[in-house]
């Protein structure tokens, strides 16, 4: 199977991940929750995956909720 580059948002807690997922749903931003890729964390946490083309929208969403969210955005092949 061919791998593809994705935008991955990682969070400090599961709570942050689920809250971010709700925000994306409210903003109709396409993507999905997935277990955090092992390369990015030694935890069994949750991350968000979207198309890389959505990066500007996702960065803006994070900026709007910067006080509530603790997250990092990376691009990686999955």
């Amino acid at each position, binding site marked *: 199977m061919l791998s593809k580059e994705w935008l991955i948002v990682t969070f400090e807690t599961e709570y942050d991940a*689920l809250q971010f997922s709700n925000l994306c749903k409210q903003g109709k931003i396409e993507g*999905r*929750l*997935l277990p*955090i890729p*092992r390369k990015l964390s030694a935890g*069994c946490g949750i991350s968000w995956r979207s198309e890389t083309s959505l990066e500007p929208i996702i960065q803006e969403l994070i900026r709007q909720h910067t006080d509530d969210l603790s997250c990092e955005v990376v691009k990686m092949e999955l």
Partner: protein
Amino acid sequence: MANKKMYLSVGVGFGLVAILLAYFGNPANMAICVACFIRDIAGATKLHSALPVQYLRPEIIGIIFGAMLMAIPRKEFKARSGSSTGTRFLLGFMMMIGALVFLGCPLRMVLRMSGGDLNAYVGLIGFVGGVFTGSLFLKQGYTLGKPQDTKATSGFMVPGFFLALFVLFLIVPSLFVMSKKGPGSFHAPVMISLIGGLIFGGLAQLSAICFSGSIRDIFLMKNFNRITGVLTLFVVVLIYNLATGNFNLSFANQPIAHTEHLWNILGLYVVGFAGVLLSGSLRQLILTGQGSSDAGVTVIGMLVGAAFAHNFGLASSAEGTTDFGRIAILLSIALLFIIAITNLNKKTAASAK
């Protein structure tokens, strides 16, 4: 796909460690069990005096340090603490009570299932139910808060405590109690137990696998990657049991098990629910090895819980559950709901309505 292959390999590794430990003398259907082995350590150090379950299990020390030895070179050892540490102590305590009423942690549940113990299949219903309940609270905004970076030395304290016990055990074994009969008297040679634990802990750290997390992933994300490792462990040990004539499909006469279905379900319900509220059940040992003092305190909560479970007659035996054990399970379930509700983030709870 690469992920699936890793989980398959790790599941095979887990299975081989379990087989090795069983072959070299660990108790039947209990080749490796986090709850039982912490309980045995509580007995060995005289925190409880239940004669059949006292032995300083090197596997536990091995799991913590296997995780640490894997985490340090990968730069994944991080000394952190401060995520509702007191609450985690209580959750660890209750997780142990649940496990000792069922007679096993989720890991032993899988080993019992692969040995044909139908009571473990009944218990699985409760475990899945507990994880489902915890996942619902996660969706509603449950959180114990973010841990903070702390001094590196703090991350070594709980691992160091267990290492000190183990070194003392090697130098002056007479300080510790060792069962002469019962499950505590069955054990592999010390170094094989230690190596088995080291490999198990290293693999668990490498894969970030987690029993309650693997079911949580299905509920929250419909993701089956982590459960692949657990299922592989089940299949590997099942094949070993079938090949060696140790597979016995029945409810009755299973080693170190009872047939009270309701309490098998509710015992593991507590474990699954607490496991999700803690973000991991057996994984607490791995996180302790990665420097989390929150997880370390959770493990100490499990150790204290094991001592209380035997000192106050809460733990089950092959004869069945006890009155106090059943009451403790009901109280634990009530407390788990209180902890889950009181740790809901109000903002998220309001927006979810």
